[in-house]
């Protein structure tokens, strides 16, 4: 009984946090892209546009739910549902932190740990293709069909180098359970798979990240929605919440890829350097720095209302920094902080790349997967296994 | 709670297999016929895994694994053949693919 309650609570927390994250990821993306392009980004709804996601959600829900004629209704409705389900499913095995004790209950900061966790994530992500392919097909629209076909071909192709890139760090960790993979990596940079001896996984890290970009259909691999040739690709005919579902699936996939990358290569919740060297003070210091910046800009405001909002943020940041200094809080939150920091950095990379790189051509994209990424991944796997076998 | 008798699994497997046979016999679209074959393979896989459970051996899993590999190879070649047939004859109906007769 206790198990079921704890599981339900965990599921509720993870779902709430994840949904919020997804909504705000959109805000972050718009802000970052705006700053890359020297714009302001959303700034009307709420202070600094912080309520923009909420407004977006309300807008999407209240829009007219249009079902075009001549679509295959069943599959047309099924597709976004499939896409979003498969995107959210893999979060259930992601470990966010180490074991914690709260109110007398000991539990892991992870919904469940499968001993085939890696395979589970792969399986679920491979099922994600159907949502897109079906959406494209069921829309009964040439552009949508082409977009769907392109994207499914792309996802199948990039799954191969991705799996091979995953296999290499697994050789170091010797387990398929995500939790044990993190545990097999140590609490400093050179004990993470990416730099771990005898076989540093830098190459497979890069391959995994590139394949991750392609799997999530993000720039520079966002061919399925290349506006100038395919209108909006597979979701041309979708509107309202169904469109939002695809949108959400894309961001959820980004989160999954970032989490998987940090678990497989960057040591998951393990800190950058050992606690004994003071890694627990990194987070408070960062928050304190953020608070100071807010305070400075609040005192020298660029716009009038910054005079009030920024000091409020500064106060909040300082509060968080202080709270993090308390040992009981630190014990629980520090692993979470490190995990979030790594995943967050990778998410930032996703946005960063979108702000900088142009789109590939389709044949280049496939050629790149099959003729470059795949051989390199195979070679990397061979070298890794040799190194692991010899040493 | 005693759990599920193994024979239920086997009967489920038999049921799926029979459905696969039925699909193979009654369907006319060559792709659906092909899928019925996959259904039969899956049914057999289930009984392999069930026997594996009863004998407490992993060997059944290995066979299932091999069946999957062979199915993958078969799907690749089979679908290529289907594509070629479609290219040459503009039909997917098995009944119309009967040039062996003459």
């Amino acid at each position, binding site marked *: 009984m206790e198990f079921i309650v704890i599981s339900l609570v965990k599921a509720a927390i993870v779902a709430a946090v994840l949904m919020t994250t997804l909504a705000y990821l959109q805000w972050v993306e718009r802000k970052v892209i705006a700053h890359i392009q020297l714009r302001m980004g959303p700034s009307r709804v709420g202070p600094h546009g912080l309520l923009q996601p909420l407004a977006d959600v309300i807008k999407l829900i209240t829009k007219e739910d249009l079902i075009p004629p001549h679509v295959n209704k069943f599959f047309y409705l099924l597709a976004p549902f499939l896409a979003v389900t498969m995107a959210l499913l893999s979060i259930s095995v992601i470990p966010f932190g180490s074991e914690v004790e709260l109110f007398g209950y000991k539990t892991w900061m992870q919904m469940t740990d499968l001993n085939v966790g890696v395979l589970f994530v792969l399986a679920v992500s491979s099922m994600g293709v159907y949502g897109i392919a079906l959406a494209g097909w069921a829309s009964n629209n040439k552009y949508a069909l082409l977009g769907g076909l392109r994207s499914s071909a792309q996802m199948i192709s990039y799954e191969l180098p991705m799996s091979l890139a995953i296999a290499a760090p697994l050789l170091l960790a010797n387990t398929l359970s995500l939790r044990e993979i993190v545990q097999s990596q140590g609490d400093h940079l050179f004990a993470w798979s990416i730099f771990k001896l005898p076989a540093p996984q830098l190459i497979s890290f890069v391959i995994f990240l590139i394949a991750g970009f392609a799997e999530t259909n993000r720039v520079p691999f966002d061919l399925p929605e290349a506006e100038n040739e395919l209108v909006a690709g597979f979701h041309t005919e979708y509107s309202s919440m169904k469109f939002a579902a695809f949108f959400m699936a894309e961001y959820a996939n980004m989160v999954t890829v970032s989490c998987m990358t940090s678990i497989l290569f960057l040591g998951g919740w393990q800190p950058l350097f050992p606690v004994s060297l003071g890694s627990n003070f990194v987070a408070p210091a960062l928050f304190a720095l953020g608070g100071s910046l807010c305070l400075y800009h609040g005192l020298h405001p660029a716009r009038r209302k910054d005079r009030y909002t920024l000091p409020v943020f500064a106060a909040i940041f300082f509060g968080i920094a202080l709270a993090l200094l308390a040992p009981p809080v630190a014990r629980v939150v520090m692993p979470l902080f490190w995990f979030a920091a790594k995943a967050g950095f990778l998410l930032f990379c996703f946005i960063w790349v979108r702000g900088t790189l142009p789109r590939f051509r389709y044949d280049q994209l496939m050629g790149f997967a099959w003729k470059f990424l795949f051989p390199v991944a195979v070679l990397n796997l061979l070298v890794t296994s040799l190194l692991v*076998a*010899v040493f | 709670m005693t759990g599920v008798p193994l024979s239920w699994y086997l009967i489920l497997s038999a049921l799926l297999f029979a459905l696969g*046979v039925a699909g193979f*016999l009654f369907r006319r679209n060559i792709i659906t*016929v092909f899928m019925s074959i996959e259904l039969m393979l899956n049914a057999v896989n289930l009984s392999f895994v069930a026997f594996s459970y009863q004998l407490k051996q992993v060997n059944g899993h290995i066979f299932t694994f091999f069946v999957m590999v062979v199915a993958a190879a078969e799907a690749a070649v089979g679908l290529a053949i289907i594509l070629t047939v479609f290219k040459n004859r503009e039909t997917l109906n*098995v*009944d119309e*693919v*009967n040039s062996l*007769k003459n």
Partner: protein
Amino acid sequence: MQHLWLIPVLPLLGFLLNGLFGRRLAKGAVTAIALGSVLLSFAWVVKTLVGLGALETAYIERYFTWFQSGDLRVGADLSVDRLTAVMLLVVTGVGSLIHIYAVGYMTHEGGYYRFFAYLNLFMFFMLVLVLGANFLLLFVGWEGVGLCSYLLIGFYFLKKSATDAGKKAFIVNRIGDFGFSLAMLLIVITFGSLDFGAVFPAAASKPESTLTLIGLLLLLGACGKSAQAPLYVWLPDAMEGPTPVSALIHAATMVTAGVYMVARSSAIYLHAHAAQEMVAYIGLGTAVFAATIGLAQNDIKKVFAYSTVSQLGYMFLGLGAGAFSAGIFHLVTHAFFKALLFLGAGSVIHALEGEQDLRHMGGLRTRIPVTFWTLACAWVAIAGIPPFAGFHSKDAILLAAHHHAPWMYWVGVLTAAMTAFYVSRAMFLAFFGEPRGHHHPHESPPVMTAPLAVLALLSLAGGFLDVPKFLEPLFPLSEGAHDFALVAISVVAGLAGIGLAALFYVVKPGLADAVANALGGLYTLVYNKYFVDELYDAAVVRPVETGSREALWKGVDAGLIDGAANGVASIARATGGLLRLIQSGNIRSYATWVVFGSILVLVAIGLVGGGAR
């Protein structure tokens, strides 16, 4: 841990670098990679052997299990004992020299990087062959060197004769490899292992008949690789390859693999007398046979090729007579002087811009003195003149042969005289007398002459390396007193050969033709290499072809099989008349019949077999 794996892997790296990127690399870089990898390998051999010290017993390094199937485990194991040490030094040492020489020789040829990539690959496989601690690893090297030999013989792949020669070498080698494979299967069945360390100690306890069979099959393999009768035919043709290849692969290293393998398997041969006797017969037969052919060849490389066959025969004679160490000793000295002969010949050919025919040479002594003097060293060494290298090893073999069976000694001495004669003949024709060609000979560059000089030194002094003594822990020294009379006779025979050649080709140049005319048919026979290739063509190739066409195709196939098939077919047609009712050409109806059949089987199982277990 001595990291033995570095020895073969270094040339492999060279191969990979040159093979993959050679086309884009500068010539200097290709040279540096090719030479560097082999020289490093040589250095590592020296370092390892120094590090291993006395090597009373084999030193084995086990890396990983290559594969395991049932009780048979084959590991990627390398081992070094004294025999391996000798081979390693010869292979990497002579190999390095020839690599250096090839830099000069190949510099104006196309496919420079390809040549060195192949050469490095060859070194890799040869070192695996020598270092492998079980038969299968030896076989990997064995096949690998065969592959490289094929690639290098056909190096000038635009020349049809070259590609044909490559194919011939490959196919003839396959016959031998077939024997080797069968031998390995038999070894697995008999001993349950392929490890040298497990097989040889157990050999004494196995039935002699099995051991004899294994020995004979191994011998078949050795005959293929080491160009022994009746499988020697590929080696003379192999001279189509570039000369450094002839020196490295078809004189110094690869062709001695058979000798190495038989010596390695000495434990089996010592318990299989018939097989060992066979080794001696084949060796002696090949030695005489090839030597007689060598007497009448006009292509300088062909002369040396037949000489190689003949000398390999000597080695087998030594092995067969029980003097394994003498055979290996001759292998070492032969590697020195035969490599030198070939490289010298290459230098001559280089000087004459591709001329290989002895009849168009002459008077080169003053034109290319360095080549002449270095070749002269090889000359005296192969002729068995004391105290040079060939004398010591050949003498050891002849003494062992005398101890084994005196008549073998006499045949051996006769062969020695012939050897001296044909080498002298080649030397006199090329370097003495009047120039007969229209060439402007020029001396080779130092990068070619330096290796010649080193090899010349080794040919002169190599005999004083007491290889048999070094190998004593592995092969007990053969008894038989060092009979001075026997030694003297063989030396006299060698001198007589030289003298006769001098008489024929220097003193009275017309005499040779006169003798040839006088001998008539016999000369023609020898000149045409006993018509062996034609014989093979007539005895094997033609009958197989004709047999296939006449007997198998028209007789068996058209008559019997087609007849039977037609007969069956007419029966089938009659039956089919009934059955065609179900042959609707409709896939689904076929499937229905399949289902129907499986239902019948199920019913049968339900009625007859099965039951609760």
